[in-house]
């Protein structure tokens, strides 16, 4: 025993430190593996590549959306330089600008509210303690009814074709995955918050959905809220302008 201690004492101090660090690391890894049951370990192994795939697709989506916004800006610039008849070009460009703003293809900044909607602090096994797509839809609808003129959910602009869906515990808007916490932005009149909070249906939403299940709803009223431009597709496969409608130009 004395001989062993003497040999340890003879070792350089850096070797002892390193051995100690590696021992702690090994202990932590073993403890982590032992703490996970066989089922969890199996699902963890299955989920890791799926999470990687989802993150990779999300990155691609962000890049595609940026590209769409760049191309749209380029088109606006080229259309402005159109060499045709000046009056006609001006008229069409003004109509294009109006349609882009009306459809939500342009970023908007103005007075408004930013809401943050989060799951309950300690969500139980029940789905009710988690934010659902319907909760987000209800909040957006209440904002529209209170006079909001533009809205977004996380970075997705709410447009004429926006669906907000539950996929299990995940929420999608415009088919884009929304990472929690959920942020709903709205631009509207100065009294938007007052109108919202005095609306009977909003009060009912807070009473029946937010309070009893511990969902967390917070807000900020700001002079300048920015609602992003819609960076998705506007391609039409089935519908076409009604030929019987009176031509505008």
């Amino acid at each position, binding site marked *: 025993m004395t001989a062993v201690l003497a040999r340890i004492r003879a070792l350089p101090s850096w070797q002892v430190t390193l051995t100690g660090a590696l021992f702690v690391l090994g202990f932590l890894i073993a403890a982590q593996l032992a703490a996970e049951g066989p089922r969890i370990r199996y699902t963890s192994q299955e989920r890791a590549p799926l999470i990687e795939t989802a993150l990779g697709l999300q990155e691609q989506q962000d890049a595609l959306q940026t590209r769409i916004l760049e191309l749209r800006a*380029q088109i606006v610039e080229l259309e402005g330089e*159109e060499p045709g008849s000046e009056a006609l070009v001006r008229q069409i460009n003004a109509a294009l600008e109006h349609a882009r703003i009306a459809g939500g293809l342009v970023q908007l900044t103005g007075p408004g509210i930013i809401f943050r909607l989060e799951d309950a602090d300690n969500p139980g096994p029940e789905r009710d303690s988690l934010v659902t797509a319907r909760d987000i839809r209800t909040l957006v609808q209440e904002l529209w009814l209170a006079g909001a003129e533009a809205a977004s959910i996380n970075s997705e602009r709410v447009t004429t074709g926006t669906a907000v869906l539950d996929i299990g515990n995940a929420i999608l808007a415009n*088919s884009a995955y929304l990472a929690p916490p959920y942020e709903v932005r709205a631009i509207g009149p100065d009294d938007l918050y007052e109108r919202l909070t005095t609306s009977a249906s909003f009060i009912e939403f807070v009473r029946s959905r937010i309070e009893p299940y511990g969902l967390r709803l917070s807000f900020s009223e700001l002079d300048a809220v920015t609602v992003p431009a819609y960076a998705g597709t506007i391609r039409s496969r089935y519908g076409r302008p009604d030929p019987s409608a009176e031509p505008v130009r």
Partner: protein
Amino acid sequence: MIRSRRRWAITLVAAILGVLVVAQLRSQAANPGLSNLSAQELTLVIANVNTRNESLRAEVADLERTVASLTDAHDRGESALDELRSDLAALEAWAGLTPVVGPGVSIRVTGEIGGEGVEDLLNELRNAGAEAVAVEAVRVVAGTVVYGLPGGLSVENTALPDGFEIRAIGSSQILTGTLTRAGGVIAQLGATYEGLTISVTPLDVVSIPATERNLVPGHGTPSL
């Protein structure tokens, strides 16, 4: 020599620990929501995001064609008015500023239903790819909400009759299939509202009017 080996050993351990810590932090911070999903939920999210990426790629290709066409006309000193007109027609139709026609469905709703139930139906139509939707004579655009309690529904300040129609343009097969599938939105609404009947009829031609809503912002400033 010994000092060099010592340095290498410490550097190696520090590097391994660094990689492990960064990987752990990244996997937790990159997307806290995704790490809470089951394998099945992740698969569904991947399928949805993938489908959206395909449609975004198609949009990018379309926009690149438009840029090329405008640049080409510009370089030759020619007018691209036709391109502008076609862009304008597509944009106005999509935004709800002009009437549109196309194949789709007519949905007849009879019996008592609340505004949130109708909104669930509209949300499912959008999810199924409806390109334009109208509730009776009102075009549904951003900001349009069907609200009220059963028996007292309104949309854009217009009361809805007891039996009303929703029309949508899109693939009549996909729209019908999505709405009427077992456990789908119609089945769920039928379980919530007693006596409610929702029938879906595929049509070759559906007409949807333009919106009467003023979509020009009065409070926000656009960043053009």
